[in-house]
């Protein structure tokens, strides 16, 4: 799976590239509009992660061009402007999703994955990891073919973990993923702890393995074994 990352901040670009490469994607990078435009003309990408504000043009024009040419590339917009207009305009142009700086890499990863899955399998495929099967279409989970009853947030939590296997998920990124960035949880991260414990218990009770590992002081990791 090929991904093009368009971002003018080289340091950020590097981190995104490293992070997504570890997920097994083939990543190519462009640090300005012209470079990106050139690459999009020459090659085909499954997903393009595009920063809107570039030194020599707007990322929105790239999206426009892709859509005009009917090129089937999934698009994730990155913007420093948390501006609603940009967001609506970008989504109107045909972008699949939108993420605002500063974002968590795990969140970016989860979004890219969701776009890729929607593009490649039209969202119909189940995600299977050992005994756990997740059906993103009807948001259901089963363990050893027994349906697991999860609350909406528990489902989202598990999904976030599975999308970021072997990655450290900080409490902060989990909180923002589950409840958005409007709520200021600050010192209330014990919420997350309780939440993860509940999920853990449900999986164990259904006969599943506990893949959720606590990383000292920082957060959690979904380990495959």
């Amino acid at each position, binding site marked *: 799976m090929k991904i093009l990352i368009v971002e003018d*901040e080289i*340091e*950020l670009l590097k*981190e*995104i590239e*490293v*992070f997504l490469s570890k997920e097994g994607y083939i990543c190519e990078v462009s640090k300005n509009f012209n470079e990106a435009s050139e690459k999009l003309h020459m090659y085909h990408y499954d997903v393009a992660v595009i920063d809107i504000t570039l030194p020599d043009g707007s990322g929105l024009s790239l999206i426009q061009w892709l859509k005009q040419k009917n090129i089937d590339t999934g698009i994730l917009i990155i913007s*420093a*402007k*948390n*501006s*609603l*207009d940009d967001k609506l305009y970008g989504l109107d142009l045909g972008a699949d999703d939108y993420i*605002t*700086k*500063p*974002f*968590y*890499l*795990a969140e970016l990863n989860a979004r890219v994955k969701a776009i890729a899955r929607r593009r490649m399998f039209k969202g119909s495929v189940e995600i299977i990891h050992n005994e756990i099967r997740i059906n993103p279409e009807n948001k259901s989970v089963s363990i050893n073919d027994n349906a697991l009853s999860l*609350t*909406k*947030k*528990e489902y989202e939590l598990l999904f976030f973990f599975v999308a970021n296997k072997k*990655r*450290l998920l*900080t409490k*902060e990124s989990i909180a923002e993923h589950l*409840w*958005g*960035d*409007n*709520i*200021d*949880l*600050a*010192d*209330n991260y014990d*919420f997350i702890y*309780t*939440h993860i414990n509940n999920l853990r218990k449900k999986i164990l009770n259904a006969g599943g393995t506990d893949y959720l590992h606590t990383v*000292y*002081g*920082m957060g959690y990791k979904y380990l495959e074994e």
Partner: protein
Amino acid sequence: MKLIEKLNRQYIIYSLLVLSLTGISLYHVLKAIVKEETDEKLVNTFNQIIQTDNVYLNDFELYPLISIKIDSTETTGRVFTDTVIQVGHEFEEYRQLVDHIKLNGLKYQVTVRESLLESEDIYQTLALIVILSFVFLLFLLVIINRKIANSIWRPFFDNLEKLKQFSVQTQEPFIPTKSNIKEFEEMNGVLTTLTTKVISDYETLKKFSENASHELQTPLAIIRSKIEALLEENQLSDNQIDKVHTIYKTINRLSKINSGLLLLTKIENKQYALNESIDINAVLVSHMQNFKELIDMKNLVLEYKNNSDWTISANKSLLDILISNLIGNAIIHNRNGGEINIELFKGLLIVSNTSNSAILDSNMLFERFFKGSNSSSTGLGLAITKQICNAMGLSIKYHFENELHFFTISNIYS
């Protein structure tokens, strides 16, 4: 004191002063003239008496006007005096002349008197004239002043009213009412320059804070990604992890403050169109659903009463932030096993909750960077809530009652 009142008062004081001075001097001048005239008249009478030949001057008396009697005492010369004489039952004021003459070897004392009653009348008339003219002048002054206020001062008061309405936030320039008075025009010129500058300075400031917030987002994103990468490497000691985690938390706080400020600036800049018709009940229900797990984890009892629907014209994103802030606060600042009550009426939303913290300072609560007991919060949540309410023409109030913190949002702006 109003300008007109002040002017009127000054005019009254000065005219009173001038008129009383005029009255007093007039009285004195008149009195001197009357005295001189009376004295002249007395002298004339006296001369007529002594010029009359062969008159038997001996003890002639025409009381109280003329009296002649033999008097052998020393002469003191001609003397004018004022005196009061009883005529009938009444006392009257008289001016008298006393002189001595020698006739046929005999010394006579001649007294001639003239009543001063007439001059009293003159003084009274004078006083009347002075008072009447004072009243007339006053009346005239008030009328003239009012006329002046209505015409000459009109542009001044118009502009004053406009200045009161002036706000840098509405971005409407101050256009003064023209006047043909030089001083007012000068003032208008200065005010126009000043307000234009204030508006442009405010614009610059707003742009600056918005740009600054924007520009900070990217560096924050870089720092955050670098820290995440560092933590991923998994080669740090516990001690190092603690430190890196502190940096990470601080960066998160910084980025929350930054995006909060950015949001505030955007609301202030009216970058959100309020053109969606939104059912508040639906928004409430979806957010209560969103926070369900948090509510359960704290063992909170949530009671929601939808008394009547309330549909407002608003912006969905802003309303989401507003409702999520309100409910989120009610959860976060609640005590374990506490309660949250939400009541919705048409035009009124009341959220109340129990809490460990005591009554909050309602004056400071909605200020930016106000922090209660929770020092690691950004202190922007309620400032944003208030700003959103303002933008939507709603009012938000806080009060503390029966151990409950109440937040009331209504469309009655008072």
